């Protein structure tokens, strides 16, 4: 890959002095879907958080280049405007802030930042209706406060609804499948697939091969103890499903 959209080199990150990411190298090209699997606590969400700009992590070494820019230098909102989107493993409830209001504020903040024209109320609602249909979202949900009192599955669906509204270039989905029932999983996966195109890259974090039946990845990586210990094609996910992580590096199995 000559100029990947995202290039992670020897990335180390720590939380409260404890090193969680211990040298990650990964290149993701436009149009590619990479799945990241790995045991609990191996650092998957940490990696996602570092990429989105969560400031509770301290990057101790390495670099991340996104669309030719030093990603780690950018504020979270600037990363968003540049096209980075994180679907949270645990979406946050924000009582008192309306879902649609928030999305419109976010979308227009991004557009302003990119020097594009803001969407007016009518255009915004039209777009929202289209995306709600794609994700089979009930409008009683979108009219409520952000994630407030949403069920686990509703929160995950709302993350993908937001992604569909914001149309990022790099989407990082952190265990979007957990909490979804079988039907919801299909709907959400369809939503994600509808957004797949040659310009957009995705980093799909999951524990289950099942999701990858719907969102078929180009590459699968195994993250263990803060390192990528194995990479392969989509067959790797099947192999992991069958054998678990024990057959990989002893270090990985020990986590």
């Amino acid at each position, binding site marked *: 890959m000559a100029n990947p959209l995202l290039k992670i080199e020897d990335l180390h990150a720590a939380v409260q002095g404890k090193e969680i990411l211990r040298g990650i190298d990964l290149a993701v090209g436009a149009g590619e879907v990479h799945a990241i699997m790995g045991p609990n606590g191996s650092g998957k969400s940490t990696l996602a958080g570092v990429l989105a700009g*969560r400031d509770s992590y301290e990057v101790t070494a390495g670099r991340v280049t996104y669309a030719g820019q030093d990603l780690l230098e950018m504020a979270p909102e600037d990363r*968003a405007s540049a096209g980075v989107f994180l679907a*949270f493993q645990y979406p946050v409830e924000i009582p008192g*802030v309306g879902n649609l209001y928030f999305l*419109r504020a976010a979308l227009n*903040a991004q557009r302003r930042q990119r020097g594009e024209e803001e969407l007016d*109320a009518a255009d915004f609602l039209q777009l929202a209706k289209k995306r709600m249909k794609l994700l089979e979202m009930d409008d009683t949900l979108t*009219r409520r406060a*952000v994630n407030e009192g949403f069920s686990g599955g509703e929160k995950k669906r709302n993350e993908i609804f937001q992604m569909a509204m914001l149309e990022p270039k790099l989407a990082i989905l952190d265990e979007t499948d957990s909490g979804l029932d079988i039907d919801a999983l299909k709907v959400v996966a369809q939503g994600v697939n509808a957004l797949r195109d040659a310009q957009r890259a995705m980093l799909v974090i999951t524990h289950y091969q099942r999701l990858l039946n719907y969102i078929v990845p180009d590459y699968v990586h195994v993250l263990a103890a803060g390192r990528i210990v194995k990479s392969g094609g989509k067959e790797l996910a099947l192999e992991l499903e069958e054998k678990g992580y024990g057959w990989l590096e002893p270090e990985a199995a020990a986590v």
Partner: protein
Amino acid sequence: MSAATLTAPPAPAVYTVPDAAYERAFAAIAARSGEPAVLRQLRRSAFAQLQQRGFPTSKHEEYRQTNLAAVLQRSAFALPERPGAAALRAAERAAHPGAAFGGPQLTFVDGHFTPELSRLKSLPAGVRAGALLAANDAGDDRLARLGELADIGGENTLVAFNTAFFSDGAWVEIAPGAQVDAQIEIVHLATGGAGVPTMAHPRQLILAGRGSRAKVVETYLSLNGAAHLTNAVTEIFVAENAELEHARLQQENTAACHISAVHSRQAADSRLRLHALTFGGALTRNDVVTVLHGPGAEALLNGLYVAEGRQHVDNHTVLDHAEPRGASREYYRGILDGQATTAFRGRILVRPDAQHTDAVQSDKNLLLSSDCTANADPQLEIRADDVRCTHGATFGQIDEEALFYLRSRGVGAEMARHLLIFAFAAEALGRLNPSPLRTRLETELFSRWTGLTPPEGAEASGG
């Protein structure tokens, strides 16, 4: 050891006797002709009570956080006459905060009923309203009800202070069964005077008839930045199965001293929603005493206080469950910035007869600076055994995780912070039934923090 050291030290003075200036001011009122005998008698007793006890100092258990005596004794306050033409003109501009509401309105300037700025023609069916003193001219016996709930002999001597000095007040009566959609407005404007700070002692008497439903809003405003004192008393009677929503909106200037007492009594199966919304004032002290006096009564106490700079806000509430199957929900929320200080004391009393009481109390504070101080002091006194009663208080900063969530979607750091402050307040506003007042406050607070006007149609707060 000498005998002297064995005798107990004298008890600290919990009250101070009012300054002589108040005596002269009262003499002028007592000499006023034309007031009915029942009122003159009430005023005399009230002033006697005040003189005997005086203003509470911070040695008084109920006033530890707020030394009212220090404020009330520092300077004498002038009791203004009816507003002159100039004051009326100034008042006119401010008099209709709810102009767009278009509903009935009683306006008072420095405590005097001001018909020119009021809207009492074509009251909705089932509503009677007017100035307390005028009402009595017409042969009503309402004055006799004054003080039935707000006792001039009580610990809270500010009630006696009000009763001795009040210039006039609002009376609102909802007929049994009346369903009133229009919001009934009571607006109090303070002119602040020139040089000497003024005082006003607004008074409200609200009677909600059996099975009625209505909304009453009291709004307190200053016409300029001059210091003044407001010492208001509201008495609310909610008859069987009636539903009353009552909001008290304090938006006086930040030099004002605002003291209030709201006393309510609910009959069986009635529902009362009391909102205490405090934004203004250098020093604010609100007392709410709610008695669930019939079985199955429900009360909501919803408080929001926003204080910055050196503002001080002290909310004391008493929820008195006297009868079985009562439900009370008490939610107070504070947003503090600068060097603001606030206090919340919530007393819940469940009397022996009040079995199956269900009471919930919470006080949440959002602290935006490191120099502000919030206090919470829940007091549960439970004398029945089959009750559910919970309480909690929190003090916290902006939620970092929520902040990151908003920013990760592209909302700038500053805007995200402001949205979250608004959201904290919006939750309290969300407990008001949908009304023009709620919409107006949402708009005002949204702009206050974000500097933007909320988008039309898109509910900024959701829900």
